[in-house]
């Protein structure tokens, strides 16, 4: 998969963008309201929005269906799945992570972020609904659920590197 750039647009939402193989800058503005705006630029002028299409939640699903790709994004070390505002994220714990050797309770994930750890995958098995005393190890994959903001904060906690 190509490289996705994420920019926060304070007061508006978040923008995710990339360059197509053809050299056009295009992306999606995710408004706080849930509205999505797909924009495409001319190859000659990547700064300027040439066409923008506003999509409702339903339209966005239609577009994903029409594209025929899975809506789970599989990127480097992270997978995100969003259902009606609830975000699930799979976070890989690398050996440098500040979370290594600390328990879920110690990290105060839920108190600090509002998001919960739904499961920890310690290959070859998965531990669903781990206790607060569960200690995270390098190589684990932590599955969290919460709001977009909350999940992002868990990512900050686990993946500060």
């Amino acid at each position, binding site marked *: 998969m190509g490289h996705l750039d994420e920019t926060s*647009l304070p*007061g508006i939402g978040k923008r995710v963008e990339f360059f197509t193989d053809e050299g056009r800058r295009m992306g999606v503005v995710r408004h706080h309201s849930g509205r999505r705006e797909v924009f495409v630029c001319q190859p000659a002028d990547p*700064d300027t929005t040439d066409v923008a299409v506003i999509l409702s939640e339903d339209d966005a699903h239609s577009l994903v269906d029409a594209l025929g790709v899975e809506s789970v994004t599989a990127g480097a070390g992270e997978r995100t799945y969003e259902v009606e505002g609830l975000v699930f994220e799979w976070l890989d714990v690398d050996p440098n992570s500040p979370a290594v050797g600390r328990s879920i309770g110690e990290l105060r994930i839920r108190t600090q972020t*509002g998001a919960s750890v739904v499961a920890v995958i310690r290959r070859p098995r998965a531990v669903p609904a781990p206790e607060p005393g569960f200690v995270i190890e390098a190589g684990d994959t932590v599955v969290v659920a919460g709001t977009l903001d909350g999940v992002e904060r868990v990512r900050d906690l686990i993946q500060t590197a």
Partner: protein
Amino acid sequence: MSHTVLLWLELGGVLALLAVMARVARRFALSPIPLYLGVGLVLGDGGLLPLVTTEGFVEIGAELGVILLLLMLGLEYSGRELVGNLRRSAPIGLLDLVLNFSPGFVAGLVLDMGTVPALFLGGVTYISSSGVIAKVIGDLGWSGNRETPLVLSVLVFEDLAMAVILPVLGAIALGGAVSGATVSVVVALTAVGVTLTLSIRHGERVSHLAFSDSDEVNLLTILGVTLLAAGLAEWVHVSAAVGAFLVGIGISGPAAHRAEMLLTPLRDLFAAVFFVFFGLSTDPSALPAVIGPVLVLTVVTAATKWVVAWVGGARERIGSKGRWRAAAALTARGEFSIVIAGLGVTAGGSARLSAIAAGYVLLTATLGPIAALVSDRWPAASTAASTTAAATSR
């Protein structure tokens, strides 16, 4: 005619007039703020149709307008958005502060208004209008553009700067001298720091707990808490606006977006009343004398915002067209310049301060969106031409 008859006729007349103005502004894709100010100027003392019975209501409504404007400003960006990008936006933000505060401050000193009113005039010329600019970005479909994060980061920095400047100016306005206001300033800045920290650490959770499924409960809760905070702030000689602003910063996450939707109609109503009130309390006969300074300030501060956009755009490797768009958008000053000027008038600023602020916002809030429209259309023609050329050559 009885008093109530007159009251309703006058109030209805004013609102109907504002509705016409809002419609005109919409028709030409402009900000309605200058038109509201104009209505106030026409209706005020010395204007064409002085108001008689509604002044009491308008005065309270205007105060409420300021509180709602600041509450919404606080709501617009979460604590994390305010502080999160600080390291990246600080150089440009500081350049913006220095370049755009100075013209107003210097003008105040040159015009011999006194140091304190000059400080307020500096605030008037510094703050771009996030309301007008958000509308420009939305109307012209700029949210995908490269320069938009730059424009927003400037606005966010100004917002954060307001969190520091407003308590200081507010304390001066209510406490009189700079020295007497020190305690209030310390109190206010501590409150700002604590609120920001709490909002960043626990804001979403607290907001979530306080929030109910019922819009009615939410509306009353937010308004109640905000007015209490505003009252407390005023009590410790920090402006009520600061209290409201802090409540806005404190609420974050989905609760903040919900609150924004609930409060927008109220804000629109009372902010309009506030702009009318500011126009009312500005003596129109003081305007002709300040036309010179207003024109000079407009030209100078459009140029200084342009420098900010140009330097910031260069840092982000944005092309010249994008930088022009950013400059055009940032030119607009609006609601917060008027809020600061209003505080300045409380602080004993002369009639000249409100006249200059009114004239200045009238011009910049009109020119900003027009310049934005021009910068959007005019380069588009050349891009279209070049793509057609490319298409034919293929």
